């Protein structure tokens, strides 16, 4: 018997009716992605802020005060002035102090004698990137304070003409995100993760529930083909997931005001290719599992690595080659590039056709395996 669109359509309609009957599902399907992105969008930022810095000023001169002031003015630090190093140490161990700056006594004296003066800085290195960024921010402040002192000294030597500028300069030109804020990059990433989770948990239960209920035998004796059944299950979820795509994109655009430089229709079109892949993976998990619990655990064990290894938060360049190769099978690996390129770089389909092709191929692969497995179950 041939593939029939009429049967496919009938199954899809039945599924849709069944989903809309379960009132408990509706808030989960539509409200939770919006709430999640709204809440988590605020968290997703690497920008350096509120670094808890303890300062021990043993010098107490105009110069040391002006240094503390300029650190305070940077707005990056929450400063507590302390009286003894022991206080800072306790704070570091308790985790209340992230960095500890000592201005030694004799600091101003050294500078006035024309010597170099070192400031002691102790960093909590646990969060290595935060420590590196803290060090760089403080370094820049100190260099700014130091430059006029050097100029004054040179004037005294009568060597003003001597350029102190280094003979080599690097002019950075930052594309796509000139302020280097992390939010415009992270929010599309979180959006992609929310979609991955929603789509996979929706379909991971779809088939196995029928198995547990014993319905699969009944369907096997009808003229319904495995491909019609699987695709019929898939179609309503594509519709639901597309509504989710529009909802979460709206949150990113209207609530977080992330600029969308590319085209909205392109975003929706490529998102639908992506969700077909993740929904397909959910269905595949559902066909190979024998209980709901197994299906859910398998889904969880796929979602977690997908989120961690797809380059959304952690640079894919840093991963071992084997893991990078595995990640190529994750639709999120490609969608992460797609969504960020469309949002931030205004990329067009010409830039993204290979990612799209990869997502389509992966989706087709998952669905074909799901159909093949179901066919075996029908016999």
């Amino acid at each position, binding site marked *: 018997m041939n593939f029939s669109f009429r049967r496919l359509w009938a199954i899809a309609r039945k599924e849709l009716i069944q989903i809309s009957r379960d009132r408990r599902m509706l808030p989960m399907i539509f409200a939770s992605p919006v709430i999640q992105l709204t809440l988590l969008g605020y968290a997703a930022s690497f920008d350096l802020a509120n670094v808890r810095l303890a300062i021990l000023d043993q010098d107490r001169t105009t110069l040391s005060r002006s240094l503390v002031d300029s650190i305070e003015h940077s707005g990056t630090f929450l400063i507590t002035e302390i009286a003894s190093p022991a206080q800072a140490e306790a704070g570091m161990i308790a985790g209340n102090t992230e960095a500890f700056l000592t201005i030694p006594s004799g600091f101003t004296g050294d500078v006035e004698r024309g010597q170099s003066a070192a400031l002691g800085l*102790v960093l909590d290195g646990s969060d290595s990137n935060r420590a590196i960024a803290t060090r760089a921010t403080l370094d820049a402040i100190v260099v700014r304070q130091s430059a006029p002192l050097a100029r004054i000294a040179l004037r005294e030597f009568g060597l003003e003409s001597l350029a102190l500028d280094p003979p080599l300069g690097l002019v950075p030109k930052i594309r796509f995100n000139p302020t280097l804020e992390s939010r415009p990059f992270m929010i599309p990433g979180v959006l992609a993760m929310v979609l991955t989770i929603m789509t996979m948990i929706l379909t991971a239960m779809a088939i196995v529930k029928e198995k547990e209920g014993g319905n699969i035998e009944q369907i096997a004796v009808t003229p319904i083909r495995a491909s019609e059944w699987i695709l019929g299950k898939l179609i309503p979820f594509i519709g639901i997931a597309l509504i989710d795509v529009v909802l979460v994109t709206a949150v990113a655009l209207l609530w977080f005001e992330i600029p969308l430089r590319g085209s909205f229709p392109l975003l929706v079109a490529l998102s639908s290719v992506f969700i077909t892949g993740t929904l397909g993976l959910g269905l595949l998990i559902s066909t190979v599992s024998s209980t709901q619990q197994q299906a859910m655990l398998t889904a969880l064990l796929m979602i977690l690595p997908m989120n961690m290894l797809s380059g959304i938060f952690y640079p894919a360049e840093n991963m071992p080659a084997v893991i990078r190769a595995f990640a190529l099978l994750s639709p999120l690996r490609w969608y992460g590039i797609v969504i960020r390129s469309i949002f931030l770089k205004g990329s067009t389909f010409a830039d993204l056709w290979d990612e799209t092709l990869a997502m389509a191929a992966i989706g087709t692969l998952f669905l074909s395996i799901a159909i093949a497995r179901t066919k075996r179950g029908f016999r």
Partner: protein
Amino acid sequence: MRSRPSSYRIVKALLLKEYLHIFRDPRSLFAAFAIPLVLLTLFGYAINFDVKRVTVAVWDQDSSARSRDLLAHLFSAGTLVRVAEVQGNEAIDRTLRRAEARMVLVIPPGFQRSLLRGETAEIQAVVDGADGSFASLSLGYVQGAVAQYGRGIATANLRARGLDELATRIPAIRLAPRTWFNEELESRRFTIPGLMAIIVMMLAAQLTSQCVAREFERGTIEPLIASPLAGWELVAGKLLPYVTIGVGQITLVSVLAVFWFDVPFRGSIPLFVAGGAAFLVGAMGIGLLLSIVTRSQQIAQQAAVIVTMLPSLLLSGFIFPIASMPVVLRAVSYGVPARYFLSIVRGVMLRGADTRALLPDLLFMVVFAVGITALCISRFKKELR
């Protein structure tokens, strides 16, 4: 009429029954211990924030001896990886837009001439700023490498003019940084304790999201309703066996972290275990609550994934520092149990923090655990009536 047996005996009987359930399914039990080990090993190798490999395209318009020497210097350390040669602004744009390189270095014509004349020669770094954090770290690296090369030239120039002694008489303020707890500033030291907390959290809520819903679905809840059991006895009987499994999981992942990934363990083991157990009560309480409220395995599990996965990853301080979050969100983070355990794992393992140092986190965690258990008990009573 026979009197009701003591609560102790009831809970013991319930525990036995639940353990029997668990041990009768050795595959699931094996999975409960194997999964965290596999995940931690996988992520432990894969995940780090270190800027170790930055792909760079080059447009050398000068192509002189000096420009080649500078490029050789920049690429010698292996952090910058030369992936392409480009020409023209359009090519730069395309390279960045297609993410073929993170950065394009442009050396303008006349670079060597300016250097030889003692003028300031400028080179350009066009950076893909989309990933702001990665961009600023890699830009910082390039700036440092260029400055180092520049200092070499500057010293040579001063020496040529017989002025190198002068340099020692110009005052400068500099930082003398030292790093504690993670001297090499390896991000792995930071992510692995975090991963331990995330993985245990996810599995904890999954495990318990099943247990009551299954009884509802199979109708075995009816005999429980008819029995004279108190709500708290039932909750304790359901929760405790899983807490012991969770303590086993925590022990295994900690051993893996310390002996395989060389994460230091500087604090006290009893504090760590006690903190872990209190965390597990809260984490598993969430699963149990969902199980009681939804009465459906499917919905309880789906809800457990939604409620635990992204919040644990994003609101616990695992990836993004809580200190940088807006006030409201910092308050919300207290509702994410992974947050507590994360700060205990990192505090005890990396910083050697003691009970007093971790007191606020421990207190909040106990409050959370008690609160969620109380909620489970009261909902359970309501559902049973």
